[in-house]
C-alpha cells in the first residue's frame, strides 16, 4: 500500500577513493584499472529517497541506464534506500548517448514504472561526466517540475505537495536558502550536502527496520531486478544513443601547460632558519608591506 511512488536515477561511476582509483603517469584517469561503484551523488539521491520510505512508507524504484554491469550500482542503491524495484535500461544502441539521448531513455523507462510517480530523485551530477544536465532534461521530458539543489524536503500527503529547501549559491554575491512549495509530481536534484535527519524515536526505529530489510533485499538483488532493452522499453531508436545525440565529442587533448608566470625561491622545508624567513615573509605580505 504505497501512497507515495518514488523513482531514483543512479549511475555507475569510477571509484575515486585511494587504493581503488588508478591514475596514469600524466594524471589522467586509468579507467580500465579503476573499480566502478555507485556514484557518490547517486548515493545521496538514494539517501534522500530513503527518507521518504521511513517517513511516508514510500514505494521506491531505482533506475539506471548503462551496460549490464551497472546492476552493481542498483544493488548498492538498494542497500541505501531499501528499493522495491530495480530497473536497468541496457542496450547497445544506447551507447554513446549524450545527456539529451540519455534523458529520453530514462524518461521512457520511468514512465513505464507501475504506478504514477510522485517524486523522481537524481544526484546533483555524475562525478565523471559532471555535466549535471541529465537530471533536468529527464525532468523536462517527463513534464515534472524541476527543483535543484534541494537540501531538505517534506511531503504533504493530503495536499499532494512537496515543500523543499534549496541552497542557491550566487558566486560573487551570497548564498540563498529558498523555501519552495510545488504540487506533485516533482523531479528533485538533490544537493551534495543533503543529509536526511530523522528526529523522533519512532522514525529512528522505522529507519532501522527498513535498513535491515534493505540489507536482506540487496543480498538477493537480482530478484528485484528488471532489465529492459530498447525494444522492451519501446524507445524511438532515432532519439537514443548516438543517433539521438545532438552533441558529439570531437576531440580530447591535453590542456597545454601555460608558461611559468612566477619564479620561485626554493627553500628547505626542514631548515628552521629558512622556514622562519618564510614565516616573516608571510606576515609582511598580509600586512601589505610587500608589493609584487
Amino acid at each position: 500500500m504505497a501512497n507515495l511512488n518514488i523513482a531514483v536515477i543512479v549511475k555507475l561511476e569510477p571509484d575515486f577513493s585511494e587504493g581503488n582509483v588508478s591514475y596514469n603517469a600524466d594524471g589522467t584517469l586509468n579507467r580500465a584499472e579503476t573499480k566502478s561503484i555507485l556514484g557518490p551523488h547517486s548515493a545521496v539521491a538514494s539517501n534522500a529517497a530513503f527518507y521518504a520510505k521511513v517517513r511516508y512508507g514510500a514505494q521506491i524504484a531505482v533506475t539506471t541506464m548503462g551496460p549490464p554491469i551497472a546492476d552493481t550500482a542498483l544493488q548498492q542503491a538498494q542497500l541505501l534506500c531499501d528499493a522495491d524495484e530495480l530497473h536497468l535500461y541496457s542496450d547497445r544502441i544506447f551507447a554513446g548517448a549524450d545527456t539529451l539521448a540519455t534523458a529520453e531513455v530514462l524518461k521512457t523507462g520511468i514512465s513505464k514504472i507501475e504506478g504514477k510517480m510522485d517524486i523522481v530523485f537524481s544526484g546533483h551530477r555524475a562525478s565523471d561526466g559532471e555535466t549535471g544536465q541529465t537530471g533536468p532534461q529527464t525532468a523536462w521530458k517527463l513534464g515534472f517540475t524541476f527543483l535543484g539543489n534541494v537540501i531538505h524536503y517534506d511531503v504533504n500527503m493530503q495536499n499532494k505537495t512537496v515543500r523543499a529547501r534549496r541552497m542557491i549559491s550566487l558566486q560573487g554575491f551570497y548564498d540563498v536558502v529558498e523555501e519552495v512549495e510545488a504540487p506533485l509530481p516533482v523531479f528533485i536534484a538533490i544537493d551534495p550536502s543533503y543529509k536526511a535527519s530523522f528526529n523522533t524515536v519512532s522514525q529512528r526505529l522505522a529507519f532501522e527496520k527498513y535498513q535491515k530489510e534493505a540489507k536482506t533485499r540487496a543480498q538477493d538483488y537480482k530478484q528485484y531486478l528488471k532489465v529492459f532493452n530498447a525494444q522492451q522499453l519501446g524507445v524511438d531508436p532515432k532519439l537514443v544513443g548516438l543517433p539521438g545525440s545532438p552533441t558529439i565529442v570531437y576531440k580530447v587533448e591535453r590542456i597545454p601547460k601555460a608558461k611559468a608566470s612566477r619564479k620561485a625561491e626554493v627553500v628547505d622545508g626542514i631548515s628552521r632558519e629558512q622556514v622562519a624567513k618564510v614565516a616573516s615573509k608571510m606576515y609582511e605580505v598580509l600586512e601589505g608591506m610587500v608589493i609584487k
Partner: protein
Amino acid sequence: MENYDVVIIGGGSAGLAALKQLSNLGKQAILLEAGKQVGTKNISGGILYSKKPKNGRAYNVEDVYGPEFLKDAPVERRITQYMLHSTSRNKVFTMNLTSAHEYQANFGYSVLLNRLNAWFARHAGETAERQGGGIVSGVHVRSLAWEGEKTVIETDELDPFEAKAVIAADGVNSEVAEMTGARTKFTPEQLYQGVKVVVKMPEEIIEQRFGIGPDEGAAHLFAGDITLNHIGGGFLYTNRDTLSVGAVYHYDSLMNRPSEPYTLVNALLKNPMVAEYIKDEVAIKEEIDKNLPKEEQLRIRFAVSKLIKNWNELRDTWHSPAARKKLVESGKYKSTEEIKARLDFVQNELADKYRTKFVTDYVELEYGAKLVPDGKRCAMKKPYLKNILFVGDAAGRGVFVGPRIEGLNVGIDDAVRAANAVARAIDRNNFGPQYMGEYYSESIEESPYTRDMKEIDKDYLKIFLDAAKDVPKDIIGQRYGMVFRPMSSGTLRGLAVGFANILGYDKLLPLIESEDTYVQVPVELAEKMGRPVQATYEPTLPTVAQRVARLKYDDDRASHIKVLNSKSEFMKKMVTLCPTNCYSMEGGDVTLQHEACIECGTCAEETEWRHPRGEKGVVYQYG
C-alpha cells in the same frame, strides 16, 4: 510527544542485557546509545564471567541470550589458565591462580567489546523489534525532567519524548546520575583508572606461546615493580588473535603521585616477561633510493606496500586453522601447503628484491582507557531515584577484590533485576518509587555480587591462600601481622575471616589494597624466589601521539567538556593523568584540547563533564 514505557540509556553490555530481558518478557523497550553504533564507545579489560554462586543466584549472560550465546557469540577465548606474576626487574615469581578464577564460575571468556556488544545489540535489537521497540543509536541524552509521573527525555538529536521508567546504564561517568542528582560524582578513592592496548598476534602463535589449545585461553596478572609503585596491577589476556594488555590502578594512588597512564602501560610492556609474551614478526620497509626516477620510486613504494599487506594477510591466515580452511574452500588455494609456499615466496621476494627486513617487535592495534568504579567503596546503597534505576558501572557496582575482577557480569545481573522490576511495574502500571524502585533495590541486595562488595568471601580467601602457599611466611607475616597470620592456618581461618568481616571492608582495605600488597611484597617475592627472564628484543613503544593518531574519532567542533577552574591542583594533575594528553599548561592555566578525548572520565570530577553529541567522539575498533 511520543511516549514509551521504558527507556534504557546506554548501549553497553548491561543496557543491552536489560533490553533483551525486557523484550524476553514481552515488553516494548527503547535503548538509546550515543555512539554511531553500539560498541564503539565501550572498552573492557576484559573477561566476561558466568557464575554459579553457592548462595543466591546470579543472572548470567547465557540466561538472558539463551543457548545462542554459547553457540555463536563472538567471545574470544575461554580462560583456562589464570596466573599471577610478581615482578622485579628481570625476575618473576609465578603463582597459579586458576582455581581462584574458576571459583563458583561456569566460565570466563576473554572479550573485545566492540564485536561482542555488536552481537548483543543484534540479538537484543531483534527481540526488541518484535515488541515494537529497538535500539536508537547516535543519540546523546541532554536532560531528564519530571512532569508529573512521566519523565521527559531531551536529547541533542531528537524531539523530546516521554518515558514511564528509565534504566540508566550509562557507565561510570553516568550523566543521568549527575543530571538528576541521584548521586555525587565518584571521587578518586572510589575509582580505578584502567589503561590498555590491544596487541596483534596470529592465532596459533598465541597458542604456542601460551601453551594453550584452540579452545583455551590464558589470563596473566602482574604486580611488583611494573606498577611503578602504584596500587594496582597489570593484566594480559589472550583473545582469539590479539592480546589485551593493560594496567589498572587506584585512582587516588595516581593522584598522590601522578604518572602518565601510557607510562604505566609501557612499564608493563617493557617488562621482559611481558615483552616476550607480546613479540611477533614485523616487516620493515627499506628506504627507497632517492636517485631513482620518480615513477620508479612510486612503483617500488606501491609494490612493497602491496606485498607487505599480502604477507601480513597470508601470515595471519596461515596461523589460523579456520582461515586456512576458508581459503582452501574458496578455491583460491588448493591446499594449506600452498598457502605456506606462497607466504614463503612473498617473504623471500620482499627480502631479496626490496631488502625488506623482518624483525622482532610487537604490533599495537588500539590504545584505550576507562575508569572503573570500586564496588566495595562506591556501590549506590539504593541504586534508584524516583523512576530511574541505575545498573552496573553507573551504580558504582563491580566486584574487585585482589585478583577477582568482575564488572561485565555484575552489570548484566543488575540489568536483569532492573528489567524484572520494570516489567512488573508495567504490568501494574505503577512506576512509583515504593513499587518499582524499592523492589529493584531489594533485588540488588539479594544479589551475591552485592554481598561480595560488602564482605570477604571466606571460601574465596581459602582458595587464594592455598594458591599462595609457596609464599614464605616471613614476607607476608612481617607486613600484615595480627590480622593475616591466622589466615594462613586452616583452623583459624574461619575465625579470622569472621573477625575480618566484623572489622569491615573499610578497615581492612587500606591493609589489603596497599603498596605492600601490590608493590613491596611482590618485589620481594620476585627477588627472593623469582626465576630470571630475558627479553630477546626491545619493544618499540609508540608515543602517545602515535597512539592517538591510530584511534578513530568523529570530531564535534565544540568541546564536550568545560574546565571549571583552570588553576586548581586537581586540574594541574590532569595534565599528567589524562590518557591522551588533552590537557596542557599555558601560562598558569590548564587548557583543554578535546579532539583526542577518549571519554574515560579521569577529569570528570572537577569539570563540567559530558559525552560528546551523538555519533561524535572516539570510535573504538576493538574495545
